[in-house]
């Protein structure tokens, strides 16, 4: 291969060399080669070290052009040519030399990343394989079994469970942020052995999340709930709502502005801030609140009334999610 590399770079980079690059990675894919041969191919064909790093899947591979696997000691330089491996993902495959990439390097990056994507999808599915996720979150499974499942999922020392509107729970890295338009309850970051408790708390957090027709928060972190978390245990599918919850439900159905207005007032630090958030004139907000207070039957502009509103909204959401909670 030593001969081939010099041969590749000497060739007209437009034609023969890129064809050889394609053929090389095609053979790796045909043979179901793993990540290391793919990264090694990128290093050997480009003649410089290549590295693959996928944070979410805990994958790090770095290979020198002589074929040796040598872990990286420094983060990638910003001027190294790179490509994402996941569609719309961050840069994940680098050639360790200053860019821009020539035609051969560009083809190496393209074919190597496509090959790596195939391997990652095959071996380290994004949400992890459902069976392993189920085991790692299952408090009744033996700890040894759960730790094994955690290794299968490629988890680091800490992870957090996430309850979403999708059918399956997620287990993610502590610094994970939910994609846009996701409704999610985040459990705390814990050691892998404690993931069942993170999962229980993620489900509690999920119960405080807002649905599509609710201007409240779609993502709730259990850590931010504080004492509110206790309320979740008080509201089940058969619990009779207190009068304030009925009042919220009745008020919201009288006009479309009612719920957004109440939610803004409940969460904003001041009425002025609430008006800004709602893009309303301050006096208009005052007028609307007068009307809303009449519908609810209690004032919301003094501290006690604001707390009562916050509690009423939280309880209202808990009733709405009492039977919606994704189960483990």
């Amino acid at each position, binding site marked *: 291969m030593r001969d081939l590399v010099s041969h590749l770079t000497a060739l007209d980079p437009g034609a023969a060399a890129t064809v050889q690059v394609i053929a090389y990675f095609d053979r790796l894919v045909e043979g*179901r080669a793993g990540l290391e041969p793919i990264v090694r191919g990128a290093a050997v064909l480009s003649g410089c070290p290549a590295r693959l790093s996928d944070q979410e899947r805990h994958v790090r591979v770095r290979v020198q052009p002589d074929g040796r696997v040598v872990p990286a000691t420094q983060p990638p330089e910003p001027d190294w040519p790179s490509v994402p491996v996941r569609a719309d993902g961050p840069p994940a495959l680098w050639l360790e030399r200053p860019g821009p990439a020539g035609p051969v390097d560009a083809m190496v990056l393209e074919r190597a990343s496509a090959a790596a994507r195939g391997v990652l999808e095959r071996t380290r599915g994004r949400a992890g394989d459902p069976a392993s996720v189920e085991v790692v979150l299952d408090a009744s499974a033996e700890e040894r079994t759960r730790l094994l499942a955690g290794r299968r999922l490629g988890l680091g020392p800490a992870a957090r469970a996430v309850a979403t509107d999708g059918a399956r729970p997620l287990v993610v890295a502590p610094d994970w942020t939910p994609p846009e338009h996701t409704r999610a309850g985040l459990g705390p970051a814990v050691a892998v052995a404690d993931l069942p408790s993170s999962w229980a708390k993620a489900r509690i957090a999920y119960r405080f999340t807002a649905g599509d027709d609710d201007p409240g928060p779609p993502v709730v972190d259990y850590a931010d709930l504080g004492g509110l978390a206790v309320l979740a245990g008080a509201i089940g599918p058969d619990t009779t709502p207190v009068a304030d919850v009925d009042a919220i439900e009745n008020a919201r159905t009288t006009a479309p502005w009612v719920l957004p207005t109440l939610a803004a007032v409940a969460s904003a630090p001041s009425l002025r801030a609430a008006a800004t958030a709602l893009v309303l004139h301050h006096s208009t907000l005052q007028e609307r609140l007068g009307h809303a207070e009449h519908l609810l039957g209690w004032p919301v502009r003094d501290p006690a009334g604001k707390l009562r509103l916050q509690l009423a909204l939280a309880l209202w959401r808990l009733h709405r999610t009492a039977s919606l909670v994704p189960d483990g």
Partner: protein
Amino acid sequence: MTVRYPPLPFDPELAAALELNKNERTVLDSPAAIPQMRANMAARQIPLSDITGDGTITASEVDAPGPRGPIPLVIGRPADAPADIPVLYWLHGGGMILHGHKGRDLLVLKEIALALGIGFVAADYRVAPENPHPAPVEDCYAGLEWTVKHAAEHGFDPARVVIGGASAGGGLAAATALLARDRGGPALLAQLLMYPMLDDRNDTPSAHQMAGTGVWDRTANEIGWTALLGEARGGPDVSPYAAPARATDLAGLPPTFIDAGSSETFRDEVVDYATRLWRSGVQAELHVWPGAYHGFDTTAPQAELSRLASEARLPWLRRVLG
């Protein structure tokens, strides 16, 4: 009737490397391709400065007297090594038909020399068809005798000589070891047989299974052996000094390292030779590299299997050198 064997695929990384150089490889499908193969081999020879340039190795060229004229040798040793170091006497590959003791083997010999603090002697023996059996093996034997006789002049310990070679060179190393045993010649400490060419009959299951694939298939093997042995190839009267697989008695040979790829012509003759060494009371270390074709470690030195194969030889050498 010939049994049909299912295909045995190559390791994906090795397959990809083979794909890369397929346009530059000459396939030995007829004796007419021999000149082109020799030209390729000549182009792969390197100047000695490629191994001495960094100052870690000193090397010289010497002609040893052979049965029919001089045998060119390259002699190398670590620059900082003391006197009386062990020496690896090395025979290059090339299907019994290719010249050239200054190929990339020298880079491998340099690595081994530096890793173990030993010297090496690489010999350019005569090749077939111009010089049929026994010319090649007699040159190899003469080079070995010279190496032992002149060991002290080059700072080598004549009592610690390992013979080794790859492919045809591995076959010739095995044959030279048999000659040394039977003639009461130089005592060898060990033999290092890298995917050696041992059996002129060319009729093992692996020879049939891998026909038409990879590097050095059954057709190429037949051309190589026929160049060496002519009409006698595959017949009843082939000498074990030509084809060591023909030896009926392997007792008294030195400890052996022997390897092959699972996906090459030589797989079965190599495994059989190792098995017969054990049965003859000779200690042998056998490696079969899964999915490797012939000469995989020189075609794709960066590949994982190539690196493992190169690394595996060192601890064995360390043990036999003591």
